[in-house]
């Protein structure tokens, strides 16, 4: 790497536009221009200085703002496309069964759906290319920032108070002219700028007034926040850092909590409460009548248990942790987990009450209630009288393809059926019958395996009543990265504020060595109006040459052109 030696004696890195120390234009481009490009202080961006090896080439690719902007554009466009159709985890089909997922998209969205699915857009945000794009954005943010902030920092640190006249002349705010006492003017201007809270340095008949340099770090602070945010999102993928599971819990049921190994939840009851037009809710009468019914509360009363110290899964050696009433937006929290009330299902069959009846006399020999989640083998009704359950089908299939199938489709009691054996003192051998909910009992002989001969019984069981219970749909959440995301977000906002609400302003005033005239130049990264206001305020009390804002002139020229 060869250094560029400026006339002032300072050695600049290759690629420098303006001398770091005195500001002389070094590149041909900078020399030709009327107003210099002050971005990054005309420093040599590191990326521009080496282009030999493959490492440097990759580095330079990511260092380019153009590349960064393109990555953002591609991410925006693809993210938008991902919202056109629901993602596969939000459709009513098990997301892990490819054939069903494919069928769903084609059935609901036609050719477009098929193409969408074939391109893998149904699971876009977890796709490898989307992740790589986000990763590339992160790399671009880091490299582009490092490549700019380091040289910028060095330039600003190395800047000298006295700049070369050619630098002064190329600033947007520039003025030159004779004053009575240039030295006195510089001194007074220094004092005046100090009152305006500028940092002032005076040396070699030159003054530099500078304010809010830290505003230049705003973009880099905000990028740091972004990177912390991205790291947080990345950490969500680590086991144990982020849990998002769901469970259904029946009233009275105790179940292991998915995603929270060692913890168990028991439901004591689900409550669905509506607003009542009578009583204290009377004020809502109009709204309730308009809407029909309005839900006041969804609540699951739960007990949380955990495995005792050293207890193994399945041993049911549990200890109670706490009782809690889960209400919407008031989750049960423990050990970093939150359990939210999300859904409910009312009135699932939970129990059935039957009577054993003599068909002839219709006398009842007794009643019994079967708990469908834990049916018993035998229900004693009295001396020598009992009902035995030979088999139980929670979701009875019945007749399929013209054949009787004694089988269950699911473990859920959607259509319970029983094979009872009825024993009374009169029928000590027992009579068997198949009882299906909502259908007349089939009196069949099942004692001998396979034959389902219709027989004539003396006794029957009569369905009397059903019990139901409710189910709560709960969501289990845990997010250890939440605070990291928060910190990233706060740093991001600090950076934005730093760069937006403060501006880096600089004013140079110096005596031209040859002519003895006073040169005045000013620069700010934004809000030129306030910089001019500061200079004008100083110029009221201090004799300074008048200056012009050349960008303003250009604006005016354009406007005139429009008027004509």
């Amino acid at each position, binding site marked *: 790497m060869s250094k560029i030696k400026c006339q002032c004696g300072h050695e600049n890195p290759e690629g420098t536009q303006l001398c770091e120390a005195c500001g002389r234009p070094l590149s041909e481009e900078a020399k030709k221009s009327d107003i210099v490009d002050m971005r990054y202080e005309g420093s040599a961006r590191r990326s521009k200085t080496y282009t030999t090896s493959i490492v440097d080439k990759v580095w330079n690719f990511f260092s380019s703002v153009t590349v960064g902007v393109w990555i953002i554009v591609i991410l925006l466009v693809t993210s938008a496309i991902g919202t056109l159709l629901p993602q596969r985890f939000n459709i009513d089909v098990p997301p892990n069964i490819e054939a069903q997922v494919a069928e769903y998209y084609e059935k609901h969205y036609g050719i477009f759906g098929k193409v969408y699915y074939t391109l893998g857009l149904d699971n876009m945000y977890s796709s490898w290319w989307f992740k*790589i794009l986000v990763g590339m954005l992160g790399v671009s943010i880091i490299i582009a920032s490092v490549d700019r902030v380091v040289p910028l920092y060095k330039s600003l640190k190395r800047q000298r108070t006295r700049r070369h006249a050619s630098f002064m002349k190329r600033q947007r705010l520039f003025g030159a002219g004779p004053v009575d006492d240039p030295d006195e003017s510089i001194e007074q201007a220094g004092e005046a700028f100090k009152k305006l809270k500028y940092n002032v340095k005076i040396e070699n008949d030159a003054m530099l007034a500078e304010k809010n340099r830290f505003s230049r770090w705003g973009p880099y602070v905000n990028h740091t926040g972004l990177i912390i945010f991205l790291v947080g999102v990345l950490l969500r993928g680590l086991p144990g850092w982020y849990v*998002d599971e769901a469970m259904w819990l029946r009233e009275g049921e105790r179940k*292991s909590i998915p995603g929270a190994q060692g913890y168990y939840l028991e439901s004591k009851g689900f409550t669905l409460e509506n607003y009542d037009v009578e009583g204290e809710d009377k004020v809502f009468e109009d709204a309730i009548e308009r809407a029909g019914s309005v839900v006041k509360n969804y609540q699951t009363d739960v007990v949380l248990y955990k495995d005792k110290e050293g207890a193994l*899964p399945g041993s049911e050696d549990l200890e109670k942790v706490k009782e809690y009433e889960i209400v919407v937006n008031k989750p049960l929290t423990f050990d970093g987990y939150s359990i939210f009330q999300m859904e409910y299902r009312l009135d699932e069959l939970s129990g059935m009450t039957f009577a054993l009846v003599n068909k002839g006399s219709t006398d009842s020999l007794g009643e019994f209630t079967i708990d469908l989640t834990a*049916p018993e083998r035998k229900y004693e009704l009295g001396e020598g009288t009992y009902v035995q359950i*030979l*088999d139980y089908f929670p979701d009875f299939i019945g007749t399929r393809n013209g054949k009787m199938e004694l*089988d269950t489709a699911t*473990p859920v009691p959607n259509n319970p059926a029983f094979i009872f054996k009825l024993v009374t003192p009169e029928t000590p051998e027992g009579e068997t019958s198949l009882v299906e909910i909502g259908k007349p009992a089939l009196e069949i002989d099942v004692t001998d395996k396979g034959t389902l001969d219709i027989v004539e019984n003396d006794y029957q069981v009569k369905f009397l009543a059903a019990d139901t219970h409710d189910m709560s749909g709960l969501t289990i959440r845990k997010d250890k990265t939440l605070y990291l995301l928060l910190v990233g977000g706060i740093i991001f906002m600090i950076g934005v504020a730093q760069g937006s609400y403060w501006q880096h302003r600089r004013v140079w005033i110096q005596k031209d060595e040859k002519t003895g005239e006073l040169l005045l130049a000013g620069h700010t990264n934004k809000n030129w109006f306030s910089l001019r206001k500061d200079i004008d305020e100083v110029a009221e009390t201090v004799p300074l040459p008048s200056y012009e804002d050349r960008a303003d002139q250009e604006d005016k020229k354009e406007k005139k052109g429009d008027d004509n």
Partner: protein
Amino acid sequence: MNNERKANKKKKRSIIRGVALAIFAIVILVSLTLTPGKQKGLKPGDMAPDFELVDLDGNTHRLSDYRGEGVFLNFWGTWCAPCKREMPFMEKQYQTFKDEGVHILAVNVKESDLKVDSFRRSYQLSFPIAIDKTEAVKDAYQIKPLPTTILIDPDGKIVEIVQDEMNELEIKNYMEMIQPK
């Protein structure tokens, strides 16, 4: 001298950049394998999570007690057709392998005692069957479809996870796989 210093500096910078780019690449590659919100599933080579279940006959089965012997851990339900089809094959192979140091433990996922007991009687199964009442064992093994069979070797390590129905030959081969040498 000066040139040498420059060359060194350039080399150093290249190394720093190379290392930084390599780290970025590794982070991105690792992130490709991670899916937020999904538990890291068990895979062959992992230690089988220990558990304790009581079977229908009241005997307690603790997985770690079977160290030194193979364990054929089958998760099933009475309502699941493929489970029903493979049960008789399991019973047949059990008769051969129970004296060869291979245990079968059939874990029913949360059904009633009566239902499971009726099933066992009608299929005349002699291997131990336990009911996972709280689904704690199912969750510990992150079982999704039924049947799922976990094959555990004498060292307590998972050899294979079968998320599908097995025929008799497959069952036999799997049992040979976990049989103590």
